[in-house]
């Protein structure tokens, strides 16, 4: 069966690749079969069988617990990824999630919550929205007046919150909470000089707007809630103040409290009093306190009910690990409790009781969180939560507390801790981790898939053959011992099967841990190594999506560039696999290497070379050192090369092969492509340079071919059964340029195909009246790119295919230095009826399976588009030959069929990249789409020709076989008896 279907695949791929007459017959039959091209969608019962999706939200900026009812499980979060979501606080799953536009347009400015309503200001004060929190439905939306957003607050009147006030740079508006309609809007006085930053309402019919003229004075404007009339306006001297937001808060019944590091003082000012025109200064020395040098003191207060004034207790943070709880009473500030050391502190309210949770270090690996009553500073008994810090994670930096009243009227609480590496941990007493979310995965930068190792026993056998022979007898003994280990493992496996079979099915859990990891039969399960923008690395099992290891790299600059390189795969037991991550700091340009084992996530002990100069590019050579690690070359800004690893062996090999090692570097800002050749002393010489004038067009992307790509068929079979050989230049680069002129009539997109060794421009094409962003795939002998046609206002696909012609120039070796004939280039374009986010091509082990393009759409779907549709040989007029070749007649419109969506309804929000990896099965390609979500699946571009179908009827087939077998036996016996009887007649 596989053989037959293999034929069918060959047919689809290259028309005909077989020699014998019978094979030809199969191929011809298969062509007729493949004409009945059917969809590649999954069946309903296949859902979730080999695919999974994980949804993320990003770094939490605002988190609010629903405290309306005790049983509520809602946790509302708004994140830096412009996501507004509701989490189930018992499981950590998403109830619902709203993904807004990326960039400042969808930026969530603030999140306020009252009752069932959550009010969100979006897009720097562009929109005011109210959400129903149970199901996540939009209640109302109002477009706000222009002006940059400053602050928003809920406004209550007589114990009822009715309004929401929004403060902008030059105006203030009041909106009804139930309908969103604007009650009034007022311009702020002197808004060109005064920076209004804070808004406050204590439920007494007034709204205070606070502004500051830096290093001069504070302005306080009082508005009447009913009609927005200015009741009072005053300015108070505050020469030391630069920003209200960072140094001030409002406590008690409308008292402005500010802290200043330089004067080491606290300042208070009643907002409403008419007589006090100066802030009252309280030296911290009088309280026996001191702010750590260089630290801006932080004040934290709490206003449990927007219709009531805030509490008079507040936290003052004096240094990164020193908090103090203070109380303002009768115009005097008194310390209630000193928390030294303490990392984080937060208030929480349940009913009428407000508590403060403080996280203090316990030992090197754990922190303890304790609950204190806010009004007295007294510790609540038995409220300790032990938080174990992940040794591979970051430090905690945010604490969110959910307090609730227990049945005995004491206060219970749960906390959510956010760490530097964007892990959300939800804990309950006495330290049980209820759930954990790894939000760093919302921003995957790059990834690789690494084969899993064999099981211990397999590896043992592998190792036996890998080691050098040391005498006959030891070899025999070693062999016997490893066979014995295999037998042992097999018996243990049988025993486990037997043991598990007795247990009820539900209790048998196939938990995947790092110890039970092993390669499966077809190498379908791999380790996904993901690098995230926050500098956290993850090892994820591709079959289940379980995070098997994580490692946070500290001190990663936010705009660093990462490059992940697999230097050694798992194929070289007993040498562990090895990955190298190059991290380049954009600001300093300096790079560093982090070498680790991709299976266990452990940092490797191998010494890494010091990189004193900024690194421009890397090159992974197929040259391996004596430990089977591929050699990585790093080129610095003086075009000198550093080899890693750089043992004697490697340097010797490099000297031998130096003349055949070439680099290319693309400098987008100067529009320069330059090629270098390695010298024996590891310096380089410039051998070519191509300049694309940067003032006309800008290089936006360059892509070579993937190093692990195999092309099975060297040519294409024509209708007359001759061969059109592909131009398979492994050194070919596709360079995409965009015009600097963005006028729709004059803009263009250019594509250059350049040989990376010689710098020869093999082909160039210009798409006029076209605009980026350009997405493209460069593989085999073709380049597919997508651009925006600004004349017809549509997205277009264009495909370039290169052929050598009817004869191969040199069929044994390929050298870019010896290519006298330019390739034939064919091009065709198509209309694609949707915008696209990303583009990638499938990849299989041997390259026999036909290729599909995976198109990530902004809707979150991933379209698997057969390359067959993007074929420049598609004829406009159908002929006998083109029919023979199985070419689809040209149609300008590219179809999108819903059954081509490989992720059915499991959409991937903001898909940014698609990673494809071959599996052990030729038919199967592993796909990971990442963006805000991560989706993993398998695709079968030519169907599963090498495995039996899932619904293969084993029972029927085997019962028929056995039935026939027994029928033969019985009839044979009957025939014998009958013959004998006849003989006796």
């Amino acid at each position: 069966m596989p053989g037959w279907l293999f034929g069918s695949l060959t047919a689809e791929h290259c028309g005909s690749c077989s020699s014998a007459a019978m094979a030809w017959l199969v191929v011809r039959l298969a062509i007729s079969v493949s004409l009945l091209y059917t969809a590649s969608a999954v069946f309903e019962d296949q859902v979730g069988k080999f695919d999974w999706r994980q949804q993320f939200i990003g770094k939490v900026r605002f988190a609010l617990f629903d405290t309306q009812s005790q049983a509520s499980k809602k946790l509302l979060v708004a994140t830096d990824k412009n996501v507004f979501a509701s989490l189930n606080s018992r499981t950590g799953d998403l109830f619902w999630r709203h993904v807004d536009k990326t960039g400042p347009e969808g930026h969530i400015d603030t999140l306020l919550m009252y009752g069932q309503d959550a009010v969100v200001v979006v897009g720097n004060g562009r929109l005011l929205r109210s959400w129903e929190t149970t199901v996540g439905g939009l209640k109302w939306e109002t477009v706000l007046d222009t002006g940059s957003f400053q602050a928003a607050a809920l406004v209550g009147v007589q114990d009822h919150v009715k309004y929401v006030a929004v403060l902008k740079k030059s105006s203030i508006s009041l909106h009804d909470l139930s309908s969103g309609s604007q009650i009034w809007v007022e311009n702020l006085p002197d808004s060109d000089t005064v920076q209004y930053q804070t808004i406050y309402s204590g439920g007494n019919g007034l709204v205070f707007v606070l502004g500051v003229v830096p290093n001069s004075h504070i302005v306080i404007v009082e508005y009447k809630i009913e009609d927005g009339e200015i009741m009072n306006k005053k300015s108070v001297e505050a020469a030391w103040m630069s920003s209200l937001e960072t140094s001030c808060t409002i406590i008690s019944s409308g008292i402005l409290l500010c802290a200043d590091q330089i004067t080491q003082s606290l300042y208070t000012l009643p907002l409403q009093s008419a007589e006090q025109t100066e802030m009252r200064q309280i030296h911290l020395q009088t309280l026996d306190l001191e702010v750590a040098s260089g630290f801006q003191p932080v004040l934290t207060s709490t206003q449990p009910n927007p219709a009531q004034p805030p509490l008079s207790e507040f936290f003052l943070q004096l240094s990164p690990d020193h908090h103090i709880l203070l109380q303002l009473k009768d115009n005097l500030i008194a310390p209630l409790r000193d928390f030294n050391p303490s990392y984080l502190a937060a208030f929480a309210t349940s009913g009428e009781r407000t508590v403060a949770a403080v996280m203090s270090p316990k030992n090197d690996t754990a922190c303890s969180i304790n609950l204190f009553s806010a009004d007295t500073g007294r510790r609540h008994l038995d409220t300790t939560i032990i938080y174990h810090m992940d040794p591979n994670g970051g430090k905690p930096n945010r604490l969110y507390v959910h307090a609730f009243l227990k049945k005995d009227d004491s206060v219970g609480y749960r906390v959510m801790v956010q760490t530097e590496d964007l892990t959300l941990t939800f804990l309950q007493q006495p330290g049980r981790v209820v759930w954990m979310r790894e939000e760093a995965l919302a921003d995957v930068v790059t990834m690789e898939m690494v084969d899993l190792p064999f099981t211990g026993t397999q590896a043992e056998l592998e190792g036996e053959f890998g080691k050098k022979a040391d005498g006959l007898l030891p070899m025999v003994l070693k062999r016997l011992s490893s066979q014995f280990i295999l037998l042992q493992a097999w018996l243990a496996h049988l025993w486990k099967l037997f043991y598990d079979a007795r247990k009820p099915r539900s209790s048998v859990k196939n938990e995947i841990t790092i110890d039970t990891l092993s390669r499966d039969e077809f190498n379908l399960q791999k380790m996904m190594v993901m690098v995230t923008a926050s500098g956290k690395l993850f090892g994820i099992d591709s079959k289940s999506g379980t995070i098997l290891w994580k490692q946070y790299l500290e001190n990663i600059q936010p705009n660093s560039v990462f490059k992940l390189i697999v230097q050694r795969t798992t194929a070289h037991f007993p040498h562990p696999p090895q990955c190298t991550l190059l991290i380049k700091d954009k600001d300093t340009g300096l790079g560093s290497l982090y070498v680790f084992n991709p299976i266990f996530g452990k940092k490797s002990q191998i010494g890494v070379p010091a990189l004193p100069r900024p690194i421009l590019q890397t090159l992974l050579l197929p040259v391996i050192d004596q430990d089977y690690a591929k050699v990585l070359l790093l080129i610095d800004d003086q075009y000198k090369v550093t080899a890693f690893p750089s043992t004697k062996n490697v340097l010797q090999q490099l000297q031998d092969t130096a003349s055949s090692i070439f680099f290319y570097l693309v400098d987008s800002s100067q529009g320069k492509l330059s090629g270098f050749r390695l010298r024996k002393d590891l310096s380089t010489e410039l051998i070519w340079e191509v300049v694309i004038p940067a003032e006309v067009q800008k290089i936006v992307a360059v892509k070579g071919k993937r190093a692990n790509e195999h092309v099975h068929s060297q040519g294409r079979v024509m209708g007359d059964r001759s061969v059109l050989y592909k131009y398979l230049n492994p050194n070919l680069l596709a360079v995409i340029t965009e015009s600097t002129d963005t006028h729709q009539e004059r803009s263009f997109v250019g594509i250059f195909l350049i040989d990376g060794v010689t710098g020869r421009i093999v082909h160039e094409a210009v798409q006029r009246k076209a605009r980026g962003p350009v997405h493209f795939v460069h593989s085999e002998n073709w380049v597919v790119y997508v651009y925006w046609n600004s004349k017809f206002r549509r997205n277009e696909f264009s495909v370039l295919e290169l052929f050598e012609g009817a004869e191969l120039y040199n069929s044994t070796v390929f050298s870019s230095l010896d290519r006298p004939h330019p390739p034939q280039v064919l091009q065709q374009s198509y209309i694609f009826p949707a915008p696209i986010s990303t583009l990638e091509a499938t990849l299989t082990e041997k390259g026999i399976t036909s290729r599909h393009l995976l198109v990530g759409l902004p809707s979150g779907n991933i379209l698997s588009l057969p390359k067959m549709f993007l074929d420049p040989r598609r004829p406009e007029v159908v002929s006998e030959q083109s029919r023979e070749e199985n070419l689809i007649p040209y149609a300008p419109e590219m179809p999108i069929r819903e059954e081509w969506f490989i992720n059915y309804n499991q959409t991937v929000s903001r898909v940014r990249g698609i990673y494809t990896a071959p599996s052990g099965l030729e038919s199967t390609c592993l796909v990971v789409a990442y963006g805000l979500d991560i989706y993993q699946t398998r695709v079968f571009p030519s169907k599963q020709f090498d495995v039996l179908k899932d619904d293969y009827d084993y029972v029927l087939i085997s019962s028929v076989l056995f039935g026939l077998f027994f029928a033969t036996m019985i009839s044979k016996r009957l025939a014998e008896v009958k013959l004998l009887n006849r003989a006796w007649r």
Partner: protein
Amino acid sequence: MTSPGAQGGGALATRGGATGKRMKWALELSLGNSRNRGDRQSKDGDVMYPVGYSDKPVPDTSVQEADRNLVEKRCWDVALGPLKQIPMNLFIMYMSGNTISIFPIMMVCMMAWRPIQALMSMSATFKLLESSSQQWLQGLVYLIGNLLGSALAVYKCQSMGLLPTHSSDWLAFIEPPQRLEIMGGGMVM
């Protein structure tokens, strides 16, 4: 099963109950008659030969000349058989067309297989033609006929595109060329 001894020697035979009223055992004194079944059956119709009956055929010499002609003719029939099939094959070829489906394939297989089979059993045919005087000529004609038949089958295969005669048929065996240069790099990071 009846005891194997029953058939051995032939002198003694025991019979099962199925035969009804037969005796339980019988002794036959004529050796060799019960050696096999056919003999036993002939025993049932065992009658004495009539008087004058001779076992040996009487040689008839009167029609020998005509007989030889007949043999000759018969041998020519055998030798010309494959050639005679060719027009028929051509017709079938024409009718079946060049499409690849099960019936044309079966036809081609038969067309190819029959001459091959005939060529393989050439010695048997020669034995058949032994009696003829033009044995070698007939053999040659027979051979040519079969070769023509197989050539026709090959031609049919060719016209159906089943022969690996084009470069495309050998495409799968072309190894990817080895690359001489190693190249890498990219945008300045």
